[in-house]
């Protein structure tokens, strides 16, 4: 069976932050690939550059140097609007603090990326219902986030990420704000999604959860030490 083409390919990615006269190298010559169906974990101590790498992977930020290709297209130098469009279609985020919008219901939160994509109501409805069903939150569709437990909120966040049918799910410490029971449940959900074919990139400092991934990239001081 031929090896599928890389979904994501990073080549010598650098990220330098300039503050006053201080130059901080957050990422230095980071290169690796993620192929469709991969489950990659990025781990390392605090301040090692995990989140910066995730921000660049998720097109939330641009690299200072190097090349970033998504589905073979260079996306590292895209303009603001193009990045937003690609982000909306190709990437699903799962954040540590869930990042649900308190003024919106569960259903509206899940529908949010689809609204920005301009899908009509019927299609949005179908996709949101499907995503909520997948995470077992259909019954809570009309609730507000503050009416849910942390674990439930994170499941909704997963549903929001899935609703857009993205190429890759980027999970940033998804268990960081959960107790172990809920954390395990969420990680179990990610495993199920991966088993169904989802491509997942997980940032975590918990080696137990990192072990769920097929591959773990270890980082230190903005560089990849092992796992490429």
């Amino acid at each position, binding site marked *: 069976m031929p090896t599928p083409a890389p979904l994501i390919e990073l080549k010598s990615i650098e990220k330098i932050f300039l503050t006053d006269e201080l130059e901080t190298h957050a990422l230095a010559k980071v290169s690796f690939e993620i192929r469709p169906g991969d489950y990659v974990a990025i781990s390392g101590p605090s301040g090692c550059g995990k989140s910066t790498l995730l*921000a660049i992977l998720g097109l939330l930020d641009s690299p200072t140097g190097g090349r970033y290709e998504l589905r073979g297209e260079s996306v590292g130098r895209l303009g603001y609007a193009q990045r937003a469009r690609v982000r909306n279609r190709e990437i699903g985020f799962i*954040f540590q603090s869930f*990042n649900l919008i308190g003024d919106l219901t569960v259903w509206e939160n899940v529908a949010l990326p689809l609204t*920005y994509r301009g899908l009509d109501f019927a299609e949005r409805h179908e996709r949101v219902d499907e995503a909520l069903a997948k995470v077992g939150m259909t019954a809570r569709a009309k609730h507000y986030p503050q009416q849910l437990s942390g674990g439930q909120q994170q499941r909704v966040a997963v549903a929001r990420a899935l609703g*857009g049918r993205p190429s890759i799910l980027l999970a940033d410490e998804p268990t960081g704000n959960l107790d172990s029971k809920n954390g395990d449940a969420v990680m179990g959900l990610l495993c199920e999604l991966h088993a169904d074919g989802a491509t997942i990139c997980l940032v975590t400092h918990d080696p137990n959860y990192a072990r769920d991934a097929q591959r773990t990239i270890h980082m230190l001081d903005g560089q990849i030490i092992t796992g490429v």
Partner: protein
Amino acid sequence: MAAFLNDLRIALHALIHKPGFTCVAAATLALGIGLTSAMFAVVEGVLLTPPPYPSPERVVCLSAGKEDQPYEGRCPVKTWVAWHDEAHCFESIAPYWWSFEYLIREDGSQFIQGLDVTTNYFGLIGVKPLLGQTFSPSLGIMRSDSIAGFSEIILGYDLWQKTFKGDPHIIGQAIHISRIDEPLTVIGVMPPGLRFLPADNNNNEPNFDVNAPVDYWRPVMVRESKLKYEQCDVIGRLRPGVTSSQAQAELAVIAGRHARAEGVSGGVKVKTGSLMTLLNREGRRLLLPLLGAVALLFLIACGNVAGLLLARGLRQQREYAVRCALGAGRAQLFSAAIAEPLLLALFGGLIGSGLAVAIVKIIKMISGFAIPRLDMVTVGWPVIGAAFGLAFLAAILAGALPALRACQSDPASAMSSGGRSGSIGRAQRRLLAAAAVVQIVLTVVLLIGAGLLLGTVANLARLNPGFNTKNILTLSVTPMEDDFMGFHKRALERVSALPGVEKAAFAWGVPFTGNKWTGLFTVEGQSDDKPANKTIVSERAITPGYFDALKMHLVIGRDFRASDTWDNWANKAIPAPGDTQFVGIINQTMARQRFGNASCIGKILYTQFFPKRPMKVIGVVEDMRSDSLAGNPGPEAYFCYWQVPAFTKHLLVKSASDPRALVAAVQHALHSVDPRVAVDHVKTLDQIRADSIAAQVFAMRLLAGFAAIGAVLALVGIYGVISLSVNSRNREIAIRMAVGAQRRDVLTLVLAESLKLIATGVTVGIAVALALGRVLRAYLFGVGPADPLTIISVSVLFVVIALFACYFPARRATRTDPVTALRCE
């Protein structure tokens, strides 16, 4: 106390280190306090300052009239006599008559106005003379045919100061006044501040000014023979403890008994009214709505500062939580939180007091004739006290909520997420939004009010009154020489011959001055019972050329001629064979009312003036708005001045260019005919027209100013709320961006939120403005209180400007870094 002083010290330190916040908050408060204090000063000076009489609340105006006749606010002298003799509710009751004369001087006589009073008048008002004495009670007040003592006069303080330079030896000096041959002896000078009492029936007199200081008092004797006919204005002083309604009931009984005894048909209406209320009718009508408007502005300012303080207080939650964690009780937290608002109020009060002084000066400058007795208005201690009272009220209003929130600080939660991020939640945002909505509501009310008045003034300004007001000079002229008619003829000749003068005419009843006679007319051959014959007609007397000067066109017939005069002046009321014809010109309205479509030229009318002398209609003139710009023309009749002269009247001079350049030449020409002639009230007809709408213009200017300030404050408030909302939703916006929102989506999100806020405020504001519309109804012309054009244009304009103010925080929101979404709270 020491702890509170320490809180004040810390608050002062904090305010000094936040100069932007401090300046905006203090300036906003100062503006609100300054405007409110200034309006309070005006209201206090005009409406709340009583006449300088002891116990002024016990002085009431009395009137009586027949039940079936128009109520004029006066009373027959006979009724006063009955009340004077029989009423027990009063310490004293006195009649008075407004009068005017001229202080005869060789270099031009001077207009003076005063009161003719009975000898019990001064005892009633309870004011002692500054110099000399008042009229001796020994003169009696009625039923005397003696005229001894009636050659005395008491001077008002202002006249004494201005004309007699405050001469301390004025007592005993003789002065000459018009229409009285004998010199009058000055027996007293009254203290300052004594103004006229209400005398509504004199409103038609050319120089009547109820708000002016009284120049003189003369004793009047009520003769027995005239008791039945004369009318008078009456005041009474209630006995202590007697109410106005008790007194009114007693007076009604007395008046009714006398009416029945004399066989008067129908009942008698009796009314007692507070002197203050009657004097302040006009002022109250204008000032109370404006005070209401400025109160709205004060609330807007408070709302604005409350928003600022609330936002600041919310950001200080962590600080309060720390204090709480360190053991501060609720009272201590409240003290710490209220210290800043109190200091801001102190700064606002100080600056606001200074502003109030400046604003009062501006109000005096722009009010024109709109507000009576404005010279009484000063910014004294009561106003300064009011300013600081308002400042502390503002502190409580604006600072209480943040302070109360501080009291409820939860050290655990506040020190965690909320305290760390310094942002605010949905509930707080709603609170701030509600404050902004209230500001918008109040601003829209003010803007709609200002818009309606602006429309009114514009409508009045472009209204054609039916006559020309351009390049016309008017002067009030009263000759002192014996050859009365000769003076007028020579004066017209001299003035007409002046270079630059196109026309000159004398007129009694110049438009917009309120000056006119009124009376009933009957048409020869028609029944008196015909409804039109019961319509009051405005009467004016003019010399030939008046219509030309005012470019009024005769629809039919002819103008007056110099030959339209009397051959026999001594017997002008009763015609004799061969007399010159008494002629008159009527306006279109009167012609239509009395003669329908039939020609009226040559028809005979009878006036109340000369009921036995037939007046022949010789012409019909176009209608004009002569009483007020806002009023429709009513029936009017013009007499020829050479047949119906008046003691004091206006000279109208039509010039080719600016008529003010002619003032000196015209005055010189008049003095050359009669050196003692009184020439005063010099104005252009344009000025008179402008003065006639002074109340509307003043209200419009003030309300427009209030509305503009309110709008700026409200815009700052909306900007602040949206800015704070954007700041506190920074993370939410980042999340939206992270999941794919474009910048335009974020812009739309913030502007939609702003529009919701603005639309809510504008909608409620329109509803409130509609509900309050009747307050302004009396000042409107050509626009209704619910004028859709004004309401829509004001609302749309405000929405557009408000959205523009919101655009800046919205644009800032689009620059949110989506990476923020990755950061933990």
